[in-house]
């Protein structure tokens, strides 16, 4: 058998259209009711009389219900429920991603490379591109034991945003992959391997120096080695495939 309060509170809750709140409303009304009962009992009222008076003081069930329905608007309630589930879902996704998908080594390296950025020296040749700024400067020129000359070109790229970077780039950094390098003798090829020895076939090619590479979120640095027959005086870096006709020229100081 439902007691009188239960009948009253059920009638109140029926007026509230946002069902998920009904339990909470019932709980709160019950606390009010019981507090009121206890207060009356302290004043000397008998239990049944205190219950009856307290219930009467709670008011008309329909009116109370309608008033509560006005406060517990369904659209607000559902929006709140949705926002709670969204936070929980995203938090769960984040935890799962952090546990299984994120390569923390790469993420840390990327951040470290970003912070280790060294500004290009003043006066370095530069070009403003749509997605970033590119610099090129002459690096060391050394002589290999086989008689070829290795001339380094240092490249810097500062992207306008980090949207051009992804984890694959840390295995294979490719932004200069299709650049063209030329010196006074003409254009250099990409490193070519001899079919028989699997060694580089000849000089006059370029290769990336991976040990010097830094790939940050927006700031990248790398060194390209030009393998030549002799010390160069100058070299030009360009990117005809991009459809833009910029050229970065680097010059080495010739010893007197």
């Amino acid at each position: 058998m439902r007691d009188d309060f239960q009948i009253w509170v059920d009638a109140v809750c029926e007026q509230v259209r946002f069902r998920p709140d009904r339990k909470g409303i019932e709980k709160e009304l019950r606390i009010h009711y019981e507090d009121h009962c206890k207060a009356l009992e302290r004043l000397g009222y008998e239990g049944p009389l205190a219950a009856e008076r307290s219930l009467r003081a709670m008011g008309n069930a329909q009116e109370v219900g309608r008033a509560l329905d006005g406060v517990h608007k369904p659209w607000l309630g559902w929006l709140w429920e949705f926002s709670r589930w969204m936070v929980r879902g995203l938090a769960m996704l984040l935890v799962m991603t952090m546990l299984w998908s994120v390569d923390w080594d790469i993420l840390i390296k990327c951040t470290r490379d970003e912070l280790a950025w060294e500004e290009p020296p003043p006066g370095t040749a530069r070009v403003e591109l749509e997605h970033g700024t590119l610099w090129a400067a002459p690096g060391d020129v050394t002589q290999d034991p086989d008689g070829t000359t290795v001339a380094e070109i240092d490249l810097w790229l500062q992207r306008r945003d980090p949207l051009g970077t992804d984890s694959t780039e840390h295995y294979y950094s490719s932004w200069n992959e299709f650049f063209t390098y030329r010196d006074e003798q003409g254009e250099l090829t990409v490193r070519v391997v001899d079919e028989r020895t699997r060694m580089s076939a000849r000089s006059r090619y370029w290769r990336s120096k991976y040990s010097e590479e830094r790939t940050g979120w927006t700031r990248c640095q790398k060194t390209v080695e030009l393998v030549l027959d002799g010390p160069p005086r100058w070299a030009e870096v360009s990117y005809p495939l991009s459809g833009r006709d910029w050229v970065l020229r680097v010059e080495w100081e010739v010893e007197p």
Partner: protein
Amino acid sequence: MRLTRGQKIGRNLLLSVLLGAVLYVLLWFPPCTVRGMLDRVERQYLLSDLEPVLVERKSLLYSNEWLSTHFTYLIARSGETYIATEFSRHGLEVRSEWRSLLKMSREVLCMGLDGTLYVAGEFTDAASASMEVTAERTTRMYDPDTEEYNLIIGERKTFTYEGEKAGDALFTFRLRKGTGWDHGGLEEVSREWYSARVIGDTTGARGILHRDLPVRATLYGQDGGVLDTLELAIDNYELHRTW
């Protein structure tokens, strides 16, 4: 301080935005649309104004995973420059160039995928096209004693295909008649004819050699006359990859 329901909604939405942003960064800003993928390529390779020429999608469910991997293969162009690349999505994670590196060339580009060879270029005036791909049996023998490699060239075979125009910038050439590889067809040959072996090895192990196969595409006008002949090359791995 007790928050009202409206304030709680505001707090939750703010928290969602924050969590979403962290997730987006941790996943390396995954591009979800073709435009997003092309934007990524533009930023990565310092290009601009790429527009899609071909979008091919394939899904694959590995036996040890419960989420499919979705591949998107793209050919795009910007002016006279053409690129071919691929993105793969697994759950929320999107990776570029995971299985094959981006290709970039001027004026014309070809890409092989799942029994079809795609040739992209400026083909507005071309009504039809044919293509010849020449395969040459090639074995690279490695001698562990001398540490030298010897290249043995064997028979040669030319495969001819008729193209189908798929827009002003694309011709497709179907390499197979049915759904599977044709016996002795280009797909099979591109896999079986290119080997890397070690002298003295008794296990029968064989590596598949990467070789560029010469491709000659001939474009015909409305009157059937030859408009142009294009000399291209394609890696044999692209000819036998099915996804």
